[in-house]
């Protein structure tokens, strides 16, 4: 499935002493979410131009981990971001609310 995860418009910033965390406002709950560095990298990659596979490839380059596991982890985390409304995922012009 080719789709392009995209950050929803909100206030967010790189955060923490080495600016590898991200903090953002979750509009749905008006709460502030702090993302740890790996979560932050995935969120950052959701620019509406990269596919899920692109993100996984980038992730593999950055972190030395096994592909099978990472695919599942990235999907799960993207599903979390979609569920809180921080990211939307479009596939063939339709928005998808869960990656399988």
């Amino acid at each position, binding site marked *: 499935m080719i789709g392009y995860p995209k950050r929803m418009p909100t*206030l*967010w*910033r*790189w*955060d*923490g*002493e080495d*600016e590898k*965390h991200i*903090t953002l*406002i*979750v509009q749905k709950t*008006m*709460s*502030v*979410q*702090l*993302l*740890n*560095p790996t*979560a932050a990298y995935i969120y950052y990659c959701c620019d509406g131009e990269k596919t899920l596979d692109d993100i996984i490839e980038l992730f593999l380059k950055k972190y030395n981990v096994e592909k099978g596991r990472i695919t599942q982890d990235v999907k799960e985390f993207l599903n979390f971001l979609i569920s809180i409304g921080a990211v939307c995922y479009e596939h063939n012009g339709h928005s998808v609310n869960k990656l399988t």
Partner: protein
Amino acid sequence: MLELMPDVFSPDFTVYRDDYEDFFTYIDELNQHNLLPKYFTAPVFILWEITSKCPLNCLYCYNNSPKKVDELTTEQLLQIAEEIGKLKVFAVCLSGGEPSARPDFFTIAERLLDLKIPTSTITNGWNIDSDKAKNYAKYFQSVQVSLDGPNAEIHDKVRRREGSFDRAVRAIKLFKESGIDRISVSFAATVHNIDSFPSVVELCQDLGVSSLRTQPLVIIGRAGINHQEVPTKEQFEKLREYIRNTKKEGQKGCLELEWGDPVSHIRTGLRLGFSLSMRITAEGFLSLTPYAPYIMGHVLKGGIQQGWEKGLRTGWLHPRVKEEMSKISSIYDIQYLDDKALSYVHL
């Protein structure tokens, strides 16, 4: 990941959790795996007291408003707003004193809106008319009105001005009429009004407000001077129990009841080490929260960023703050900090 629930309506943005022992275990686990930052690049929330002017004179006001201080000019306030925008602060609460007593109140609010900074405000409702209410609807994500009793007799006694109850209720109605969705009420408990809380709950339901919040008084400022007005531990426990039970029963329809706890707020700060919030006083002093009244900077000396970087971002770890705050085990210990209020912490 960690969700930091900003309580944008309380004077201190309490990160309160009923299950905070679990929360601390969670924090420790995250720390073990190096998943938490050592500090944030900028405040997450700012409590901004834009004035010390106030038409009321509540028995317990933590910052002793109304009082005469060298307030900042409109230009200086706008400069602060600019910096807040640049630093991407996630929530600002305009407070005071009575924030609407400043003629440039909406100018500041408008600038924050233009900068896309989520902003809320707190008011005693004294000078709200329907035009002003429309401006509140335009500029603020949520508005909190202080209501210290279910009737004029009780409320006006605590807030020490006749007519203040009627005006607070009128303000809530005008805010509703102007379409503000999130109107909350805060109730500060003293010996005069603590038993009337259930009636305030009823009133809030009738008025259609979305949440009602209370917490033990912070025994600082006038609450320290008038300490005979502070309820006992047992009275606060009873109030807390009432809130817990009412929430459990889920009886209050759309009205959400909230309980804040200054002591757990302090414990959270000490445990996390890093700060989430910053308080700016009407004079421009910078401190962590009203509960930790150590001045760690001034907006006119390097601005928010310098105050944050030089000390506030890890202010809970400052040896003096840590030593004194660690001794606080109940709200009644907070009063001993008062003589240290407005004293500089040398960084």
